[in-house]
């Protein structure tokens, strides 16, 4: 079956060059040791790189509309997961409580356990 070309092919090498420059920027940013610069450089660049790959290499923008919607909905579900779980997993203390992991490990059960037949 021959492929019906459904996309216009841009200059891919040019896109690649931009991606490499962005990579260099994120690495240089990480070397500055200013916390905010590092985080913005690293994650901001990551988002831009991902967008460039999705748009120019995967041609998501010329696909049927529901395709990017489906992918975004999947990301949305992960965001919902984060929102629901974060209060329990991320916080280690609050008003009147601390999540102090026990400093000893749990008592051994080898002797006390009923043999499992």
């Amino acid at each position, binding site marked *: 079956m021959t492929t019906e070309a459904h996309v216009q092919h841009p200059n891919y090498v040019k896109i690649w060059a931009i991606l490499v420059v962005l990579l260099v920027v994120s690495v240089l940013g990480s070397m500055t040791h200013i916390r905010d610069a590092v985080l913005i450089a690293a994650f901001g660049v990551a988002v831009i790189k991902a967008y460039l790959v999705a748009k120019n290499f995967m041609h998501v923008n010329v696909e049927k509309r529901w395709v990017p919607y489906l992918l975004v909905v999947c990301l949305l579900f992960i965001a919902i997961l984060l929102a*629901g*779980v974060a209060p*329990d997993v991320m916080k280690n203390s609050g008003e009147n409580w601390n999540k102090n992991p026990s400093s000893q490990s749990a008592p051994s059960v*080898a002797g006390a356990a*009923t043999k499992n037949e």
Partner: protein
Amino acid sequence: MSTEVQHAEPGIFQKYFLSTDHKMIAMQYLFTGMAMALIGGFFAYVFRMQLGFPNQHVPGYGLVTPGKYNALVTMHGSIMIFWVAMPVLIAAFGNFLIPLMVGCDDMAFPRINRLSYQIFLLSALVLLASFLVKGGPFGGAWTGYPPLSAVGAYNLTPIGATLWLLAVALEFIAFLLGGINFTVTTMNSRAPGMKMYDIPLVVWMIVLASVIFMCSVGPLIAGAVMLLFDQTMSTGFYDPTRGGDPLLWQHLFWFFGHPEVYVVLLPALGIVAEVVAVFARKKIFGYKTVLYTTWSVGFLSFVVWAHHQFVAGIDPRMANIFSITTLLISVPITEMVFLYIATLYGGSIHLDTPMLWGLAFIGEFMIGGVTGIFLGSSGTDIYLHDSYFVIAHFHYTFVPIAIIAVYAGLTFWYPKMFGRMLNETLGKIHFWGTVIPFNVIFIPLFITGTAGDQRRVYSYAQFAEQSRPALQHLRTTSTIALLFMLAFQFVFIFNFFWSLRRGKRADANPWRSSTLEWTVPSPPPHGNFAELPIVYRGPYEYGLPGCAEDFAPQNVPDAALAGRSRA
């Protein structure tokens, strides 16, 4: 357009083990699921005998020790959900029906289809293998909470625990592959003329179930990898002494676990929709509304999961939020039940066996649904959590889904699948012998649960404040009712296999249904359609004026309708 599939008649191995034909793969899933149901049902028999007649030798099994009890309830739950409900409702019915109902010759990717069954079979074998290892099968409950599930010294079934986890992971991969195949086939391979709203509801429901499954299982696959490493590689993902958090597993599990119940509910609703339309000779009331409510249920199912964790130590503010969303989700489900009732109203009701099962589904599921309200409200759940009230609630939803709706589908499509009719009298005996005992099993459990009986306890004899001897007659009644219900299943098994050879031969459309699978011979040949159909109308055109028959098949052009005589 005719299809000529040219190849030599296949040998037995090719036909039964290597087939890529969706109908054969459907049968593979169906029979595997039915075999696993026998095992899961046997386990229920054993542990209910322990609960009804505590600490006595169980005929056919022996004495139920605490460790064995834990393994029995764990395996019963895991098997019934992952190796019975899902393969039969989604994989068996989906595989058999989708290509036929959308009017094409097979799934879009038949070899991926075959691979998905092979992975599924492997998952079942891995689970069964766990029965034979040292320590026996996993006993940490189907929910597998760490640290119990992560540490062999706690669960006493370390090998079984890892095998269980691997089996579940393989099952997930099988259903991801299968579900994606169903979705692509339904989206792309439809007959010309079959628009989105001409697709039969059971196909929509199976596809939506597959999509919900796909979107929810990812985090649990990640969580399962982490649990596997905790079990085998000394990591501490869920170990609070090492920076992990057991609550993380609970969240990952239930983020999947709640949508999962809708993953099994939707195909059941779809089956009942088909049966109700055919046996009331009436169009589904509000097809589009059914669809829109299903989409909203599908979305809402992703934001209710922590109602399983109200007393686990989650942030109380999240408990508020999840209570509200949980109560909200009952609205669209209730609306669907109303739509089915509205379909029945004014219809010409034929109480054949499939319809009896369909009506039973509606009534019994409603009881399950309303009892869920007490559990979805965090206040009452504080008392009811982990009691038998929960067990009774979810069996009033799961049994309609995995048993009642399955029987509705099997008795309805049996003629198409096997070319024979099931015996109606035996069918009705089986029906009453299942539904009446089912209620007698679980209504007492609502009562004992409200009184405080805790689940997952092998015997109350050791716990004075739990024992409530005054209620023992309820527990024993429940057990005896289960014995009756299990006995009546042999009526179905006999009917099923006897009718394969001796049942009345079925013609193409014994129920006078309008959907495409009834336009081909029973059973359908390889390639399904001698001439691939074109679709002219929706799937539920019953009771139309101006037609000689009381229904208009989807593939008959308007001009040809008037000339058809009553078959």
